[in-house]
């Protein structure tokens, strides 16, 4: 058992990469076999990752399933993996969404082998990001993930795919180069201060909190900002978001699902894992500014989403709005806000992943994503309409479904420390109903106005197979929310003790204080 526990993360991370390697040996003519193989590999990775949940200790605040080996010892680079309550479900979200995305790629006909090869490599990259406990390793995975995504958009994308792929890569690179500089700077600063030149996250963290590594305010500010910009671009936080609509519109369905489902979470995950605990002072110093951007993003994304004629763009802008909630929750520094933010990360992955899958379903039938091309789909595709409705409601945060819990906790935490921010952000919940229900009405309800929609067929079996797990999760997360919140508890408490916790405060006239 010990052997499994200490190697399970390696297994989960590299199973897809191994699968990708084996895919290379498949003959080009066996496209269908290659797809089935990729599907089996990704399901295998998912099953392996279930071990993580099954044996996770919810009371432990530290990292579990640790792997710690030297990699490039001369530079203090280790192969260190481990997860805690913050990353646990993100890993699972990745391993769950990948097989679903592969299912959604059933109708890919062009360069099938390479396509699935990149999908599997992408999975390795993302899981690696969530598991790395070594800054250098983290950076490697962070960059590795870019390559398959670049090809997925650039080769299998829509009309402006080259532009979108370039923009995606260059934008992310611009941020991550800054992060690399900061990582190296941290390496030298820590080395100088403690004598141990290492990229180990935990050692550096311990040095900072043990008082051995004291960062000058100016240095800390630079480091914080360098990390933060890299993450903010990834989230994307307003005003760094314009790569997202382009990337989503051009990416193939599976690309969009993984992009929105897990890639964006790498940004908010980075904030939680690195920005907050490594640079607590600057986190608090910049929090008012960051939360302001988050609130602006919530309202701005929602308003822009409202007038989009293209369904994928609409969902992309809605992501800007929803991701704003996550950043808001993180920088409230309250337990409720942070737990809500992590919950919302999962829940956004599920609902938005499902939304992109649903858009993909009708895109494959009609080869358009324009809302005005549809209407009255409920007649021809009743099951699709029902699924669409459930996912829409989940996205607008109906209680009893997943979206509500995260939003509620984030807003509670935010309102508790900053009332104006909380009040304005809560108004974003109104707007989300506006754009989502408006889209639902125009696509699903009404008479069929476009003759081309008269011949549409309802969901087929593989489409049901890719959607039903997500629908199931939507309710599970909404009704048994504690199954997901409980494992976060200890890790969030530790994170906040490192960062400096803020409590929801009753802040009115002192005469009223008991």
């Amino acid at each position, binding site marked *: 058992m010990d052997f499994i526990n200490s190697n399970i993360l390696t297994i989960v991370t590299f199973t897809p990469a191994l699968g990708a390697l084996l895919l290379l040996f498949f003959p080009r003519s066996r496209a269908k076999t290659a797809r089935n193989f990729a599907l089996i590999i990704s399901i295998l990775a998912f099953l392996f990752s279930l071990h993580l949940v099954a044996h996770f200790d919810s009371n432990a605040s530290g990292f579990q399933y640790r792997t710690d080996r030297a990699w490039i010892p001369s530079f203090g680079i280790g192969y260190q993996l481990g997860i805690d309550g913050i990353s646990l479900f993100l890993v699972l979200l990745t391993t769950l969404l990948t097989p679903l995305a592969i299912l959604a790629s059933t109708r890919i006909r062009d360069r099938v082998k390479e396509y699935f090869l990149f999908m599997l490599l992408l999975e390795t990259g993302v899981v690696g990001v969530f598991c790395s406990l070594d800054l250098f390793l983290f950076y490697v995975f962070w960059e590795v993930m870019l390559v398959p995504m670049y090809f997925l958009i650039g080769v299998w994308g829509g009309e402006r795919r080259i532009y979108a792929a370039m*923009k995606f890569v*260059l*934008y992310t690179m611009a941020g991550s180069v800054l992060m690399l500089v900061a990582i190296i700077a941290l390496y030298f600063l820590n080395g100088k201060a403690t004598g141990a030149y290492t990229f180990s996250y935990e050692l550096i963290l311990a040095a900072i909190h043990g008082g051995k590594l004291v960062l000058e305010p100016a240095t800390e500010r630079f480091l914080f900002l360098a990390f933060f910009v890299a993450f903010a671009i990834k989230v994307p936080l307003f005003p760094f*978001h*314009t790569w997202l609509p382009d990337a989503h519109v051009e990416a193939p369905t599976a690309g969009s699902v993984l992009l929105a489902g897990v890639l964006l979470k790498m940004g908010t995950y980075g904030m939680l894992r690195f920005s907050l605990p490594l640079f607590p002072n600057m986190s608090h110093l910049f929090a008012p500014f960051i939360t302001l951007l988050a609130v602006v993003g919530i309202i*701005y994304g929602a*308003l*822009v*989403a*409202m*007038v*989009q004629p293209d369904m994928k763009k609409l969902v992309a802008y809605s992501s800007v709005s929803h991701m704003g909630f996550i950043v808001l929750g993180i920088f409230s520094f*309250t*337990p*409720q806000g*942070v*737990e*809500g933010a992590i919950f919302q990360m999962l829940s956004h992955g599920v609902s938005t992943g499902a939304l992109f899958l649903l858009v993909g379903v009708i895109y494959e039938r009609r080869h358009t994503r324009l809302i005005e091309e549809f209407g*009255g789909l*409920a007649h021809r595709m009743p099951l699709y309409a029902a699924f669409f409705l459930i996912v829409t*409601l989940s996205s607008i945060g109906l*209680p*009893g479904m997943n979206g*509500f*819990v995260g939003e*509620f*906790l984030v*807003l*509670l935490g935010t*309102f*508790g420390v900053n009332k104006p921010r*909380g*009040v304005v952000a*809560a*108004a974003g*919940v*109104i707007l989300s*109903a*506006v754009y989502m*229900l*408006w889209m639902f*009405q125009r696509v*699903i*309800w009404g008479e069929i106005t476009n003759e081309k929609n008269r011949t549409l067929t309802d969901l087929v079996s593989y489409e049901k197979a890719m959607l039903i797990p997500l629908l199931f999760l939507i309710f599970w997360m909404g*009704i*048994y*929310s*504690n199954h997901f*919140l*409980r494992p976060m508890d200890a890790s*969030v*408490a530790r994170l906040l003790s490192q960062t400096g916790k803020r*409590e*929801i*405060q*009753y802040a*009115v*006239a002192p005469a*009223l204080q*008991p």
Partner: protein
Amino acid sequence: MNLLDLIWMIPLFPAVGFVINGIFGKKLPKPAVAVIASGAVLVSFLMAAGAVYQLSQRPVEERSHNVAVYHWIDGGSAHTMSGDVERFAVDWGFLLDPLSSVMVLVVTGIGFLIHVYSAGYMYEEDGFYRFFAYMNLFMFSMLTLVLGNNYVMMFVGWEGVGLCSYLLIGYYFLKRSAGDAAKKAFIVNRVGDWGFSIGIFMVFMTVGSLEFTTVAERFHEGAAAGHFHAGDTWLVVMALALFVGATGKSAQVPLYVWLPDAMEGPTPVSALIHAATMVTAGVYMVARSNFIFQLAPQAMAVVAVIGALTALMAATIGIVQNDIKRVLAYSTVSQLGYMFLALGVGAFAAGVFHLMTHAFFKALLFLCSGSVIHALHHEQDLRNMGGLKDKIPVTFWTMTIGTLAIAGTPGLAGFFSKDEILWQAFSSSHGHILLWLIGAIVAGITSFYMFRLLFMTFFGEYRGGKAHHHDDHGHGAHAIHESPKAMTIPLMILAAGSLLAGYVGMPKWLSSGGSSFEHWLEPVFEPVPGVAAEVAHYGEGVEIGMAAVSVAVALIGFFIAYTTYYRKSDRAERVSAQFKGLYTAMLNKYYIDELYDWLFVNRAKDGGRFLWRFDSKIVDGVVNGSAATTVQSALGSGWWDRWIVDGLVRFTGGLIKTASWPVRLIETGYTQNYALVMVLGLLVLGGYLLWGTP
């Protein structure tokens, strides 16, 4: 069997019905669908009745039963007003106490009757199973709302009923207007929910819990210990935030606009959701939070004024509407206004009392109107009705009872509850003579528009025949017949309720013990300590006099309607011509919808479009601009590189080439020569490194 511990099952039966009908309903025969759906609600009703009976057998102070099924959302600690660190913890839990008892019986009882009625009314519809699935989902949500033991559970039901209302208004989703009305209802409600959720946050921040009994206890204790003072800004804001939620769900000014449009849904839906149950959720929520409102007298005043204003405004619009359902819709808005008037003057029990009686007679009126519409094959315009009294007698008589009840005829349900509200509006310490006056005027208007409706529908000549003369379906007067038993029996039961429901709440001057309804609710509406509640003392004579006045006002309303619509005078035309401006404004609902469209809907769309342009031109412009700049400077440095840097190199190369011809003499091309030079060089370098550096 202890039913009290099983109250969590009450919402579950309709949920099961929803799942069965939702998944398999398409394949089931219609009667099976109807039996499953109605049966589920009937079981809930029986369980609820049993549980309430068991509750009533307990001593007064123990009439509150909490059942927590499991921990739902736990999220970290927080400092609160009560000082200690409190964990944010919300259970999936239920509460049966006197207040939720009333609600659960009204919801399941009237809900069951409406389910039965719907089986007849909706029988011809294609989406029969879909309709019943939604209705059951609604029952589940509504029961969660009234039985939930904390604010978040209430919010689950709250948004759940909003969803069902959305789905049922949009039931005829082919119609654009139905889709629009559904969306409008949901979004306007969301505006209310925004306030509600902020209210919830504030409650948690104040007492560190959201569980009703705990919250109530801590507010009472806090007020007793002097932590809270009536009128604290924080408490007033909290109460107002909650009230914003109530105005959305219960269709009060300024968020009432969705309810009249909601009449796009099938008529049983209007009866169940948009009259008897869902729209009263706001009243229930304020009553549930009574301790907060008691501590916020300013907020109470706002509630009372908004209630009175809504009552008046909706009633005046109701006078001139010609769609039978719209008249009833505005009447509902107006009656909800009464309920808030009661809550606002601190008469919580009177508000809930009116909620209960109103549920009977308004459900009855809507179902009767449905029966009329059914008989006339989807005719809803009062101007095309008339003379139906003998053709559909059951509907006529039951609707007459409903009309008499809502008009406040002494002895009928509406009389007792409305009279109690008017009396409290006058006599309570929060009351005011003006509030009473508005209430009394509204009573007169109510009586007028209801009798107008009755006369236009059932009396005089049938006016719809001409339009249908050439109609092949024979929708003429001869084709009109009474509705099936499934519809008329619920009408009769509701009519009986409208006759009798008021006797549980008789005033002191009629029954020695006072209102037993009020006594039942007393534990929930216990006065918060320290809140001044000086009771004005009036003699019984004043109370009776007031009642007489309101009856007189109702009689005036009746009389005007009688002379105008029964006697077929041309007064209606004359008056509307005389006050043309006012008439047009009322007919067009004071143009509030147009104002909102202009003010909010269009501005939001403009804002979205502007920001989209801003996004692609400015925000993305910066990104693309910096990319373009990079490309341009790369091209520039490429040119520099090729012509200047490389030019220099090539120039140097050429120069060297020319100058180097003597060197070529020693460049022999023999490898051993080069090797020799390399070894020498390495030796020199090695020597320098070893000894050359200090």
